[in-house]
């Protein structure tokens, strides 16, 4: 695809909210590369620009300056229909609040991206996917009949079903208790191992970042540190050094 196997590259991203005196500089020049098959975590204190970065990387928001490429395509200047195509082929999302459609069953929610794109699921793949996320016996339940953890499993399956180039997850455990959160993290990790699923996860929890192959630290709109796969302890220590500088 692009240079040295990176599926997502960003160069010198800047994002300013508002104008003049009230302007907020959420990103002040972020460049990064997300290698294929890696789980990358983006960490940082609240308000450091994590979500903004993710939205821009995923084409949900436009940077004030800088460029983003996904699978070799510069997405910053794409029109709506090209962005739609990009989302269908290359991007999966996992949200903090699950964002399932209440009137559809678990199975229908998972299949929705395919049916939107007008594709048929590969039955074998789909069955193992449901098996893997632990939803095999919940497929006809509606979101309101599922626990938070189960809903997030549906959301993960929905992100994986179209085998996107990259999955973006924003605080996927932010709305779950710690046991359930742990299970979800395990599931995300497994998807990287088993499917080689490139994943970018935004989190402020060191425990979550500890499953990543690489951790990027964001502070005040800049990447200030990068760690390879680390323990929860090391990540916490790194966070503290950032906070004090």
């Amino acid at each position, binding site marked *: 695809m692009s240079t040295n196997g990176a599926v997502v590259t960003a160069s010198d991203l800047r994002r300013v909210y508002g104008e003049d005196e009230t302007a907020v500089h959420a990103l002040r020049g972020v460049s990064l590369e997300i290698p294929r098959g890696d789980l990358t975590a983006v960490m940082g204190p609240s308000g450091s620009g994590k979500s903004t970065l993710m939205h821009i990387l995923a084409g*949900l928001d436009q940077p004030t300056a800088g460029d983003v490429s996904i699978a070799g395509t510069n997405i910053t200047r794409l029109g709506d229909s090209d962005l739609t195509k990009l989302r*269908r082929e290359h991007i999966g999302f996992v949200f903090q609040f699950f964002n399932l*459609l209440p009137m559809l069953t678990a199975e229908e929610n998972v299949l929705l991206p395919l049916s939107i794109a007008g594709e048929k699921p590969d039955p074998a793949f789909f069955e193992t996917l449901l098996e893997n996320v632990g939803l095999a016996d919940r497929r006809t339940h509606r979101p309101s009949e599922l626990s938070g953890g189960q809903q997030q499993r549906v959301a993960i399956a929905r992100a994986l079903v179209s085998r996107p180039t990259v999955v973006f997850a924003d605080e996927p455990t932010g709305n779950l208790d710690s046991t359930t959160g742990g299970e979800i993290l395990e599931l995300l990790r497994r998807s990287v191992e088993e499917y080689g699923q490139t994943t970018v996860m935004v989190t402020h929890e060191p425990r979550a970042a500890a499953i990543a192959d690489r951790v990027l630290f964001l502070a005040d709109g800049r990447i200030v540190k990068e760690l390879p796969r680390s323990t929860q302890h090391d990540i916490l220590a790194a966070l503290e050094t950032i906070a004090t500088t």
Partner: protein
Amino acid sequence: MTKFALKGLFGRKLRTALTALAIVLGVAMVSGTYVLTDSIDEAFDAIFNDVRQGSDAVITGRAAFDLSDGSGSEAPTLDESLLERIRELPEVQVAEGGVDSESTVLVDRDGEAIVGNAPSIGFSIADGDSPFNPLRLVSGGWPGPDEIVIDEATAEKHDFAVGDTIGVQAEGPIQEFRISGLVRFGETLSTIGDATLAGFDLETAQELYGKEGRLDEIAVASSPNVSPEQLVTAVEAVIPSAAQVRTGERQANEEASETNEFIGFLRTFLLAFAGIALFVGSFVIANSLGITIAQRTREFATVRTIGASRRQVLGSIVLESLVVGILASIVGLILGIGLASVLFTIFDAVGFTLPNTGLVFNTRTIVVAMLVGTLVTLVASLRPAIRATRVPPIAAVREGATLPESRFARFRTLGSALLTTLGFAALLFGLFAPDLDTTALLLALGFGTVCIFLGLALLSARFIRPLAGALGWPATRIGGAAGTLARDNARRNPQRTASTAAALMIGLALVTLVAVLAAGITSTFRGSVEELWADADYAVTAQNNFSPIPANVGEAMGDVSGVEAVGNVRTGDAQAFGDQFFATAVSPELGPMLNVTWVEGSDDVIQELGDDGAFVDDGYAEDHALELGSRIELTFANGDTDTYRVEGIFDPPTGGSPFGPVTISAEAWDRHNENPRDLFSFVRMEGGQTDTNQERLDEAMREFPNAKVQTREEFIDNQIGALSAVLNILYVLLALSVIVSLFGIVNTLVLTVFERTREIGMLRAIGMTRRQVRRMIRHESVITALIGGVLGIVLGVVLGALLVARIEFIDFTLPVASLIVFTIATVVVGIIAAVFPARRAARLNVLRALQYE
């Protein structure tokens, strides 16, 4: 994606059903109209065909031009001797002559005339077994001399049986007949609307109608192997020029044509109201859908993030509304059948009974109702659907994301102000531009009104805050904290409140418009009668106030003791300058009784018309460049032609003229009309209006139960009474649109309660009682209704004033009492609309409401 759309729809059953209701009523009205008019049509067709069933050809007198039903004019009669000549033709197997009359009034046991709005039909019956007889004997026998058969339904209703004596008033005073039998018309009908039937033997009928030795028609059956066309050709050779012959089938069509025209008019008239209800319904749909879509912002954003295109979002909403439209149309279609029966009943209740042989359900009804319902729903859904496509994917992750404003939001105020102005401009153009033809005029009015409604609906969002403030003031007084919250809630989303109120505004504007017109007509009419009515004490008209009555009623009045003078106004069809119109004729005694404003000619024109004088109204004089001394050639129904000299030109009073465009003397009129009829007769009596005088006239009237004596005040009230029957029909039909807008308010409130679930839970948690919750919703509903009501009433008055300014014979009068009633009705609409949503809101479980997302 289809699944997404459909499941969403059925996941929101209540909301979907409420939205659909708005269109159901309009569609029901469309299908109801078709079912009703098709049924009437078929019933009448059956009647007219039954009448001519056994006739291969029918000979009638040839009128000089097409006569209108109930005008007072009749085609010339045939001489009885013609019948023999017809019978001699080899092509003729059987021929029978007959006479008939549409003013053969039966009299009930109390001496009162049995009259409805349908004709009182009387005719001769040659012979019970005659192939031309469309009647079937139910009991008794066919009539001989001084005998009568009447229809079973009338007999039953007024308690007559075979062997009883019944009074009949036709041309002369009441005559008594023995009922020889009861009959039924055709195979299926027991009644023709509420028409009464009276059958006599030929001689009795001729005498009763003053047609001794004359015939109105000859029915002919052909010999074997002679086609109706051959028969007609053979007959044509022997009949005089004042007669004509048609095949039985053509005669039936001819007789049905005026009725068919009426049915066509009724259909258009009712469809117009269906259109209004659908228009209001489209507002309700657009608004409900707009609210639902706003509430689903996050859902749309989410499907965008997982790859749905804008077009798919649009498609899913269009699909939803398609389904809603189709379902609503099906329900409406079925409801329409019920509505048709209801309409039959309503028309019956206001004294307008229609014949009914069972409901007729044509394919056209299904096609039109389905198409209209579905299309209106689709069109109404477009704006909200397009807004939904603008939801950006990022809204999926933003807390409390709202529907983005449309790109044209900035121009909304300006745009809606322009639209309103354009509407008024089109309206004024339609009303006041000279020489517009009717189609252009109606188009301009329709287009203008629609623009005004749309423009004001959008524009009013700007005025919701002050309006809700002012109209909500009583709520804050009565309702305490709940009232204040209600007022603030009504202001919270001005666009939404405005759209909800707009639907009601349309209905009320139209209702008010009707009231303004009615008040104008009523007061102007009263004014002109008061101005016109000079030296007369009583007026005589038909029981139904408008049918011309035989002239000998007026003559009989002249013999009543104490009567000084009787002035008659005759009426009938006539033709001049190639146009047909209702002409009038007056007796000289009328002169001093009426205060006519003469533009040209002396005050004594009426007394001095003589044999060849005429007077015309100033508009007619202008159209045909007439002045004193000009000649007018009048053609009468029987074909006679005579020339009259213009002796006077008058200025008709604003509220309507008692005369037609051309008036001659009664004496001259009677020379060309075999059975002259009077529209009114005025009576002057010694001593004026006294109880004794009234009694004497009433006594004389007993011989003529179809006519009645009225004082000036009674005369005015009776004439206006006919108008109020029409008004009541208009109000009932417009009420449908008001009901649709009521559903609109219910819709908005239910959706709002969904949306504010958490908030209501919070209010309950901090101590608001169920009662207060209900009160809050109720007041919000009343405030919304009042906004729509007040806007509608003001708009209705403005539209009414413009229309009245255009119509010469109406002056503007503010119908204060009606407006007060409408305002109260608006509050009632608000209260009713709130019942269901308020109950839902009050029933919310506090704990669950707080967790609701």
